[in-house]
Structures are given as structure tokens and as C-alpha cells.
């Protein structure tokens, strides 16, 4: 259907841009177009992909969550302490931390909802708080030596030539698919979109806005916690400074993926591609390797710009103004057929 296609345009554009970028990289670097690079892209960005899914929900609902990076950091520290110092079995520690994160997210959502405060600032305070508490827990990095960790980090689906679909990558893919189902196929997902479209109207339509808001931030924090678990698997350690600034990466990924920061529009899949685009830029830069620290930053900025500009152009070309009405459009009138002079 043409109309649903039009709605999908931003995602399609983003995907096209990613594929084009990958193609260019492959042409420049012979080793690039390998299964290994693709799998690395998945594994290395797994934690980002997971938080980006949560962030997609938050942003579509018209909010923002700046606390996710700190929550990841907190999670890794908590897990390390729980498993190594307090002797909690890893699986129980996972459950515990997810519950703590859920509570944390629910609190932020409740403060946003019941005190009518801007999400940006409430979650900024949440960001300070989560990071601050992890400092209080431990400022040292703590290795996690639990059996399960060694087992999970070795476990991977291997494709030969060193390409491995690791546990973090599998978790991320599951979260992306789960997120798509939840956002696009459930009542909760529709409510999230509605909130982003108009908060006041959603309330007037008889939707329980407070509950939905609290749930959205809970979801985001739980996914940040899950991302923290993945991060701790990825690094087998806990460290209070880990994942600093991840919230900005996640927001950028979501927005690059075609989600409007003002809420109401966007797709989980787009965010996933946004994450891959960011990963691609980094991989490109490290393949190049000749860039000094500053040129690497400038190149990152320029590539970001190139991707976004390209996406914008694609959208522009694809989105021919098509206003609709309840009645069919007229056939081209005679005046046009006769050829009217343009002003």
C-alpha cells in the first residue's frame, strides 16, 4: 500500500543509506565485506542496540531518557559486586538488577507524570544519581570471574573465519524483534504513539496516561539494565565509569533511524539501523587508522552529516506532497492538459 510505504520512508531511507555506506566501505577496504565485520558490528553494538530500543519508545512517546548510560554503568558495578563480593548467583543477580532498574525507571516516570516535570531534566537527575551511586559502590573496576560469564562469553554461533554471533548480539536481536512486536503490534505500543502525538488528547480519549508514562520509563530502564548485563558480559567486569555518554549515542541512533524527537513517529527497526550506521562509521575510521584523534572526530561528524543529508534528500525526493481528502482526487483538468504557463 502506497500510504504505509510513505510512513516507512524514513526507515527505508536510513536502511538504504546504511547499505550504501557499507558498500562504499567494502570497495575501499578489501577486508571489509566479511561476515566477521558484520558480526563484530552486531556484538560491539549490542548494548547500544538494546538501549536504543528502549529509547525509541521513550522518544516516540514525546519524552527522553538521559539516564540510560549511567544505568548501564550502575548495573555493571552492581553485578560485579553482587557476584564477586556478595556471592549472589549470577542469574539471581540479573533478576535483582532488572527489578532495581524497573523501580528506578518507574520512579522517574512517576516524577515526570505526577509532578509535570520535563523528562529531560528528571532523567538528567536520574543520570547523576545512577552514576553517583555507582561511584559510592565502587570506584574501582572489578573483574567478574563467575563460571557463567566465561561460559556465556565463549558461547557463540560460529560462521567460520572468526565470525561469531555472540550471546550479546543474540540478546540484542531478540530485544529488537521484541521491541518491534511490542511497539507496532500491541495496545501499549499504540498508546505510546498516541502519547507522542498528543498527550492531552490521549488522556481525553480515555487512555490511562499516567500508567503508560510510568511503564515507558520502566521499560527504558529495564532495557538499560539488560544492556548493562550485556555490557558486563561483554567486558566481564563492572566499572563505574562504563558507558559514559551512551545516552547521546542512543538518542542519535534513534533520531538517525528516522524517529522524530518531538514524538509520535518512528520505528524500532530504524533505531537498529541507526545503531548500525554509527557502528559503521566507527569501523570505517578504525579501518582507516591513519586519522589522528581530531581528524577522527571531524570525520565522524562529517560522516554523520553525510548520512543525515543523504537521508534528508532521499526523503525529500520520495515524499511528493500528497494531500488527501475523503473523496477521490479529480482527474487532471483540462487546463493542465492544455499546458499552462508556469509563473
Amino acid at each position, binding site marked *: *500500500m502506497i*500510504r*504505509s510505504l510513505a*510512513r516507512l520512508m524514513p526507515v527505508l531511507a536510513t536502511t538504504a543509506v546504511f547499505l550504501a555506506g557499507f558498500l562504499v566501505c567494502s570497495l575501499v577496504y578489501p577486508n571489509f565485506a566479511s561476515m566477521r565485520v558484520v558480526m563484530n558490528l552486531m556484538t560491539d553494538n549490542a548494548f547500544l542496540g538494546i538501549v536504543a530500543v528502549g529509547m525509541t519508545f521513550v522518544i516516540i512517546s514525546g519524552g527522553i531518557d538521559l539516564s540510560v548510560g549511567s544505568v548501564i554503568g550502575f548495573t555493571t558495578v552492581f553485578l560485579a559486586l553482587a557476584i564477586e563480593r556478595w556471592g549472589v548467583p549470577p542469574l539471581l543477580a540479573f533478576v535483582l538488577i532488572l527489578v532495581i532498574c524497573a523501580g528506578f525507571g518507574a520512579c522517574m516516570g512517576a516524577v515526570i507524570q505526577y509532578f509535570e516535570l520535563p523528562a529531560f531534566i528528571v532523567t538528567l537527575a536520574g543520570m547523576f544519581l545512577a552514576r553517583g551511586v555507582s561511584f559510592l559502590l565502587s570506584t574501582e573496576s572489578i573483574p567478574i570471574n563467575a563460571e557463567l560469564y566465561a561460559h556465556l562469553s565463549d558461547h557463540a554461533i560460529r560462521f567460520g573465519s572468526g565470525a561469531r554471533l555472540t550471546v550479546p548480539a543474540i540478546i540484542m536481536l531478540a530485544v529488537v524483534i521484541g521491541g518491534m*512486536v511490542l511497539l507496532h*503490534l*500491541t*495496545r501499549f*505500543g*499504540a*498508546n505510546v*504513539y*498516541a502519547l*507522542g*502525538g*498528543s498527550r*492531552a*488528547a*490521549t*488522556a*481525553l*480519549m*480515555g*487512555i*490511562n496516561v499516567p500508567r503508560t508514562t510510568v511503564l515507558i520509563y520502566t521499560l527504558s530502564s529495564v532495557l538499560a539494565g539488560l544492556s548493562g548485563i550485556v555490557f558486563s558480559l561483554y567486558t566481564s567486569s563492572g566499572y563505574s565509569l562504563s558507558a559514559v555518554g551512551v545516552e547521546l549515542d542512543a538518542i542519535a541512533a534513534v533520531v538517525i533511524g528516522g524517529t522524530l524527537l518531538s514524538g*509520535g*513517529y518512528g520505528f524500532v527497526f530504524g533505531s537498529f539501523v541507526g545503531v548500525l550506521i554509527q557502528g559503521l562509521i566507527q569501523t570505517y575510521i578504525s579501518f582507516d587508522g591513519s586519522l589522528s584523534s581530531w581528524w577522527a572526530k571531524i570525520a565522524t561528524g562529517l560522516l554523520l552529516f553525510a548520512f543525515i543529508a543523504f537521508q534528508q534528500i532521499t526523503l525529500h525526493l520520495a515524499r511528493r*506532497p*500528497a*494531500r*488527501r*481528502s*475523503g*473523496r*477521490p*482526487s*479529480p482527474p487532471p*483538468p*483540462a*487546463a*493542465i492538459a492544455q499546458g*499552462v*504557463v*508556469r*509563473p
Partner: protein
Amino acid sequence: MPLTDDAPLLSLAGFSKSFAGFVALDRVDFTLRAGEIHALLGENGAGKSTLIKTMTGVVTRDAGTMRLQGAEIAPRSAEEAVKAGIATVYQEVNLAPNLSVAQNLFLGRQPTWFGLVREREMRRRAAALLTEFGLAIDVGAPLESYSVAIQHIVAIARAVDQSARVLILDEPTASLDAHEVEVLFAVLRQLKARGIGIVFVTHFLDQVYAVCDRITVLRNGRLAGTAPIADLPRLDLVRLMLGRELSEATAKRPPHVEGAARAAVATFAAFGKEGQVAPFDLTLRAGHVVGLAGLLGSGRTETVRLVFGAEKADCGTAEVDGRRVAIGSPREAMRLRFGYCPEERKTEGIVADLTVRENIVLALQAQRGALAPLPRREQDEIAARFIRLLDIRPPDPERPIGLLSGGNQQKALLARWLATSPRLLILDEPTRGIDVGAHAEIIALIRSLCAEGMALLVVSSELEEIVTYADEVIVLRDRAHVARLTGNAVDVPAILAAIADAPAAPAAAHA
């Protein structure tokens, strides 16, 4: 004329509400019976919408109790009201513009299968539901791609489908045309037969007498009276609403001026834009009112948007004072001293956060440029003048406009453009949501503006109204100008005939 309510479905007692010292509702009582359509009437700002919102718990009331079928209820949110069986269409369209029509119709109650929304089933039901309202649209498209009128019908359909016991409609017909209104009334009669109680707010008295059983009138937040329809003839009703007699200036129209006798202000030739409106010719003259008539979505709004440069024409020419001009943006149109009062008040008209004064001076200020700020004194004067002229209530220029009632917002928007003293004023549905008293005043205003030599281009769905002031009516159908009526040919039957099917459509379009 007290009534004996033996079994009221819904009864309110002593509803009061004040906003920061301003009393919007003062001990209002109200009863609704099962199977009746109850008109809730009053001037702009009388408190109708506030009464409704306090009823459904959207606005918390200061005092008052409410019983539904004898049991006391106190919903604290729209959600609880819906659960109690009270479905409401609020005054402004309150739906999620970004969701599909189908999602909007079923938000929160979509058909599901193990928690997953059954999209197909939902669309099927949505399409079926809208068919009842004579609407055959793509229910998968986002709501915002449709006009306010269609959005309004969707909102009504949603509420109708939800209403278990009570249905409240706050000015549902403001943006509908005669046909849609008939369809709506047919539906309301069915609901009534099923024993549902309906509260109906409108400023169209004809509609009140066409479907309602009883009337409750509010004035300045107080209950002015309740009566069965038969006991309250039109003149009494108006007196009850206004608290005074309505000056009978509306009925007659001054003789039409011969179009060609007046100087042309702007001339458009073969002007149009693909996909929006077919190329048309249009001449606007000083002291001359051109009306645009047509069904919903016939392209009236598109026409005026092109004229004002809100949309760029892709063919044709425009001449102002005999010189070729390009109208590429509202700014350019304003430089030519055009003004445009858009139809979609909430999204294209008001800036809700700003005060009434700031909203009124906005266009004038934009015209002067940022570097020539209007002195505060002048702003106050302008605001005070128009608040008086248009009777904007409450007459407080420093109140955020978003807090005004719908009709008063509309008046402030009109003031915004009048303040720029335009040569050509384009009004898209200027009387939408305006009460009877103000309605007459606005029509009188249009006439006097015209007499002062302003050119007017007016879109209106109210044909009776259009014929009272238009010197020329252009009829649109399917996004093309299909007929032009001038002079004494301007009357309702002729317009209706042209809308239905003009015999010589293409020829008439470029007369």
C-alpha cells in the same frame, strides 16, 4: 417551566468551578434522561465546555455531585468516565493526529489476539463504523492527513461507538456541512431509540430544533433555565442565552453591487497547484465579498491557501493593482496587504501560550518587522479596541489565549487580521464555533469592512450565511472551481444545485 424528572439517567447538582478567581461555573444543576437529546446552549464562554469537562473529570470541579442512574459517581479522568459509560467528544478534535484513523477509533480497545492487535479486523470494523457516517476513507492513513471535518467525524464515531449510557458532543457540527450533519442526526436518533442520553452543544439553533428534546441554557457560568423544546421558541431561547434581545439586523442583505464596477484588488488567472486544486480564475475587488462554497474537501481551503501563498502555486499568474506578482509565502502576501484567518484554529491560528494581546498584535508586528516593536501602549490600545469591538470574553488582554473558550479564540484571531487593516481579507470558516449573538456581529462586521472598501474572500459551510453577505459565490467540487454565481443569482438553492451537479460546469468555472 419546571420539569418533573421521574427517572433521570444523569443528574448533576451544584457544579461549580473557578479558574484563579474567575468563576466559570456557579452552582449549575443539570439532568439528562435516558433516550433524550439534550441541548446545552449558551454564549461563547458561558461555561458549556467547562461543565462537560468537570462532568467527565478532565477538569476537577470545586463543588457538586453527580449521579448516574441513581448511583453517585465521581470520575477523575476521561478513562474513568468512559468506564462509567460516558463517552465524550470534546470541543477541539482530541485524537492522536499521528495514528491511523482505525487506531484512533479503537485506541485502548483494539481487538486483540493474545495481546497482539488484530490490525485487519480493526480496520474492517473501522471502515464499517465510518460507513455508518457516510465516510469511505482509507482507515490505514494517518488521521492528520484528513481535514478537520473528517477528523471530527472520526472523533464522533469513536465516542458513539464507545457510548454505553451517555454521549456528550461538544460542538460536533461546527466543521460539518449540511450532509454530514444529517448523517450525524440519523445516528443520534438511533442511539436515542436505544435509550442512550445525549448532550449536544451547538451554536446552530436550527439543529437544536431539528433533533433536540430539551434545552438547558447557561449564561455567565450560571444555569439560565431548562425547558422542553416545545416550551422555548427561538426568540425566547435567544433572549435566555443573551439575557437581552438580539438586534434584527441579520435578515436582509443590501443590494448587490455590480462586480465590474469596483476596482480589482487582485486577479488570479489559471492559478493552481497539482494535487491540490485545479487551475482557476479569480478576481477580488474592493468592497466586494466573494464566497467559496462546496462540500468538505472540495478544495476551498486549498484555494485560499494558494491565494495567500501558504502553498506555492505551480501554475498561473497573479496580478495585484495591475502588476504581476509572485506570492510565494505568507510574508509576500502580507506585503501586498493580504490577511488570512485560517480554518484550523488550534494548529494554524492561536499561539496558546501567548496572551490575547500578543496574539492580536502578532500579524501587525510581523508586518512592521522585528526592529520596529509596537510600543506597549499601542499594543494595549489595539487589544482593548478589538476586545471591545468583537466582545471577546473575558475582556482580559493578559490572559493566555489557550485559556479562552473556543469561540473567543476565534474572535481574537479575527482581530489579529483586522489589526493589520488588510486590503484583502481571507476568512476560512470565520463563524465556526461562534455563538448566535457574535455570529450576527461578525456578519455585520464583514459587511461594514466591505463597505469601507476591503476585499473579502470567505469560505463558509453555512450557505444561509454566505448568501447574506456574498456578492459572488464560487462553487467548488472535487478540487476544481465548477460554478460562479453573481448578483441576484446568489441564493441557497442555486448553490446547492451547483454543488450537487452543475449543468454546465466547466464553462461556468471560467466565466
